[in-house]
């Protein structure tokens, strides 16, 4: 299930897991569909990101979400093979690698 930053949330997305604040107070329950008000609540409480159900709405956020683990593993290996050095602890490499993986994943046919 994809994790989406609060600023990237869109109306119509469905919350995948209960969202609680640091005092364990329930802000949004799982299965709740987001509307403007729900997104405002998350922003008001300073929630940085939440888990949502996979859907077409999040295609722009994480195109890996709609692919099977086997396909993701295959794409990951393919993208990694392009690099002479793959230092995953390096944040610059990690970001570029993610961009390349997502770019490749967007080219995959829809399942």
């Amino acid at each position: 299930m994809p994790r989406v930053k609060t600023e990237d949330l869109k109306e119509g997305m469905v919350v995948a897991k209960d969202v609680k604040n640091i005092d364990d107070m329930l802000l949004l329950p799982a299965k709740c569909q987001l509307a403007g008000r729900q997104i405002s609540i998350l922003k008001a409480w300073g929630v940085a990101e939440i888990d949502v159900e996979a859907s077409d709405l999040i295609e722009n956020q994480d195109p890996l979400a709609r692919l099977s683990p086997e396909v993701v593993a295959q794409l990951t290996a393919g993208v990694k093979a392009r690099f002479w050095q793959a230092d995953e602890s390096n944040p610059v490499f990690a970001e570029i690698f993610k961009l390349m993986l997502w770019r490749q994943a967007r080219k995959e046919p829809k399942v």
Partner: protein
Amino acid sequence: MKPPSIEQLLNGIPSSLGSCGAVLREIEAELRSPQCSLSTVGAAIEKDPDLTSRLLRLGNSPFYGYTSRLTSVAEAISLIGIQRVQDLLQASSIIERFSGVEEKYVNMQSFWRHSLACGIAARVVAMELRLPKPDKFFVAGLLHDVGRLVLLGQSPDAAQQVFVLYNSRRMLLREAEMKVLGFDHQQIGGALLRHWKYPVALVGAVASHHHPAMAEVGRQEASVVHFCDYLVNAMQIGCSGEQYAPPLSMKVWEGLHLPLETVSSIVGAVDDQIDAVLAAFLRH
């Protein structure tokens, strides 16, 4: 067999540019003249229908992002600017010059796709960093691997030795060049551009794009190209023979001060522009 020296490789290459050379010289002469105007420069370009169509294709492509359609060369020059037009024509003439190179090891379409993608990325990075004359960065990116073409064109035997070694085990193509020739495509490219009397910053950028710290001049251009070469290799847009994204120097990356979050828009810009730019520069 003894591999050729850089001088021997350059011996067979005339010190002037190809068919566009005449037009470029005419533009330069036009620019020095007190009667110079957009229409006289435009007329010089319009003598070559091929150049004219390239310029209009490029002017109307997402590379410049103009919404209205450019229909005349004078219009294109007034929007794009004469300096940029000169840079682009020069780049275009170099692509044309190498059109007959043996394609056994490197497909030319793919080579220029890689090179143009690197140029587009370099131009976008320069604009992001608010560096002056981003089109200069485009040309540096476009020409960064031109040394490979000199080797392929002037000494197919030495090129073959390089590729045989390269394909025999995991190594960078540049390492194979060093082992076989004692120098690499950066040095050949730098020497070629010096031979053609190109600006020193461009020579420095091409001659040091794998280790920009060694560039005496053009270090900034070399650094931008260093990063963009890495990025477009990672994107696998075209190929100049090298199949890996070469090592990215963290020192160079930090020296660029490019915010990491802008990389995503650079990748997007390259994807958006590459097909139109390729169509503008390559006839086929």
